[in-house]
């Protein structure tokens, strides 16, 4: 099995699905000849031609608005938003149109499409190349929201997203694009949406996280095992909407302690939902308050990006606080 990174896994998945299904069409700023600013679509224009992979004018509302029309017509567009920080001009198209099309038409019209966008911090991008806006989409009924943490999942989840009949926001942790490497089968495979994965089994406390924070959580878990001799279970949510409540609750019932970790700002972040729901469903199993280790409620800063992002120390501290409670 070749060892590849997330960008290559994304590229792989796109190529595979374009081969399998000629309704799949890629569009976005600089995705054509250039292959995308992160090179996720590299070689696809050359392989599939300008009717399947094409550059768009610089207008996110146009990209998503057109993609909706294309999906209505029967295509399977996979638009790229160059950075998720620039998705807001298309926000109306996503939340008022794509997300509500099936419902409002009584199921007559649907918008299957995958909106791919690099997300999150860690590349010294400051306010506008680092945002983690998943809450905006998780709060929007009618969407699915997916975020892989490694190349294997990236490929399987992206293929599943393209085959899914709903509009999917596919967030790619850009700090891991080249940093996360792993073995990925050359064959096509699917990772079912809506299923979390226990990426580290543990008995004493559960970390619920996703995206780039999975690695950081795993490191903290290792340290805790070595230095403190307690055992941390780490759950990678993978799909954020609809999310896998069963896996989370099963783990909480086992460990009875929870730390939630994400890059996005805290207030009304996905951690809030997880915390509230865990309390609703498993309050009597909890032996400690649920801790949230998250980005702060500020715009994403440039110089202090590594103070903004949850790091091993902050997670470890929460784990120990949770254990000591």
């Amino acid at each position, binding site marked *: 099995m070749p060892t590849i990174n997330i960008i290559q896994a994304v590229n792989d998945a796109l190529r595979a699905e374009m081969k399998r299904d000629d309704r799949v069409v890629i569009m976005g700023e600089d995705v054509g000849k250039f292959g995308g600013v992160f090179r996720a679509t590299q070689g696809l224009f050359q392989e599939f031609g300008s009717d399947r992979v094409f550059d768009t004018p610089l207008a996110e*509302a146009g990209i998503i*608005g*057109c993609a909706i029309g294309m*999906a209505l017509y029967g295509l399977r567009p996979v638009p790229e938003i160059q950075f998720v920080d620039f998705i807001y001009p298309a926000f*109306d198209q996503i939340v*008022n149109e794509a997300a509500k099309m099936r*419902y409002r038409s009584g199921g007559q*019209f649907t918008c299957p499409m995958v909106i791919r966008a690099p997300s999150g911090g860690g590349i010294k991008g400051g306010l506008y190349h680092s945002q983690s806006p998943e809450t905006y989409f998780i709060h929007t009924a009618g969407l699915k929201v997916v975020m892989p943490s490694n190349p294997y999942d990236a490929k399987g989840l992206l293929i599943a997203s393209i085959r899914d009949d709903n509009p999917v926001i596919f967030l790619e942790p850009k700090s891991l694009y080249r940093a996360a490497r792993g073995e990925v089968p050359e064959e096509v495979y699917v990772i079912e949406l809506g299923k979390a994965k226990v990426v580290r089994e543990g008995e004493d406390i559960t970390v619920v996280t996703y995206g780039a924070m999975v690695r950081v959580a795993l490191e903290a878990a290792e340290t805790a095992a070595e230095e403190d001799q307690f055992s941390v279970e780490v759950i990678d949510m993978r799909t954020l909407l*609809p999310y896998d409540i069963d896996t989370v609750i099963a783990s909480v019932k086992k460990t009875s302690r929870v730390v939630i970790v994400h890059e996005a700002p805290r207030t009304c972040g996905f951690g809030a939902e997880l915390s509230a729901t865990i309390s609703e469903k498993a309050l009597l199993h909890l032996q400690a308050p649920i801790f949230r280790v998250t980005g702060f409620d500020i715009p994403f800063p440039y110089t202090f990006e590594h103070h903004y992002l949850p790091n091993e120390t902050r997670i470890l501290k929460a784990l120990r606080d949770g254990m000591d409670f």
Partner: protein
Amino acid sequence: MSEGLVGFLDPEGKVLKGQKVPSLNRKDLLRLYRVMLLNRRVDERMITLQRQGRIGFYVGSMGEEAAIIGSAFALKPKDWIIPCYRELGAALLRGFPLFDLCCQLFGNEQDAIKGRQMPNHYASRKLRFGSISSPVGNQIPHATGIGLAARLTGSKDVALVYFGDGATSEGDFHVALNFAGVYKTSTIFLCRNNQWAISVPRQFQTASRTLAEKATAYNIEGVEVDGNDILAVYSVTREAVDRARRGEGATLIEAVTYRQGGHSTSDDPRVYRDEKEVQEWLKKDPISRFKSYLINDGAWSETKDASLEEQIKDEIEVALKKAEKIGPPCIDTMFEDVLDTVPWNLEEQREELRASQEYESVQQDR
């Protein structure tokens, strides 16, 4: 960009000097007339119904029937219509049943959209008539996308999208036309310039001389047409459709017309607009103009008209009566079609609602 307003008929329905009307056979002419009249009478009836409190809301298209029906008539059934909220005429022309309309207005169990939207927000996949939504202008890029998808897949289908003068101000208008220009999509942008966006008159909407000339900015065709002259509207749309099918790209058509009524049943235009203006435009009414043309042409008569009126009235009452009897959809449907399958959180919430309803009835029995 074509120059000047295209028009064939004068307000009395006489062919203007030097103009040649498109050659349509009598059957088609009468069909057009019938749909226009039906559209008008449905609007009037439903506005009354709203006043009686039997439906919650209604948007009419009085005065704009020629712009709507004339343009839709230029399409083939396989072509797509992406509506705004005033294009009942286009739906009726395609065969959208009055009964289905009434069910939608009541939001009842037979409503194809399961009672989910306000009145006038119907949809018909079968008729390739898009799903109406309320946000102004955000449907326009969808038609660009359809026109693009058609081109990419080698089909000859075109998309016709409707919107008002107000919608030209939205960013979505701009991006839609710009993409259409770049990709030469098979899209017709039909702007019903009815002079008003609720209380805001056309001249405060944009400083441009005409709306059609905005086409220049995208290097697509722009045409200004007398929107109260159904033959002229049909003719320019037909040309646009033919251009699109030949792969020559998109057209922006400005149909100059007038919103005779309020913006909707929630609106009282007397607060903001001059009754004299309304009276002037009533003289140019598209239906009486077309009727005069047909009578002048020998294709129609007052007697026939009277019996058509009767027929239409009956049709409407039959549909209404039948629809009004039907109860609401099953409450469970509220949780369906959010996604293709019902996710766990909605299953739980459906149970929660059921439980609260049972709880309520138990409480009431106490």
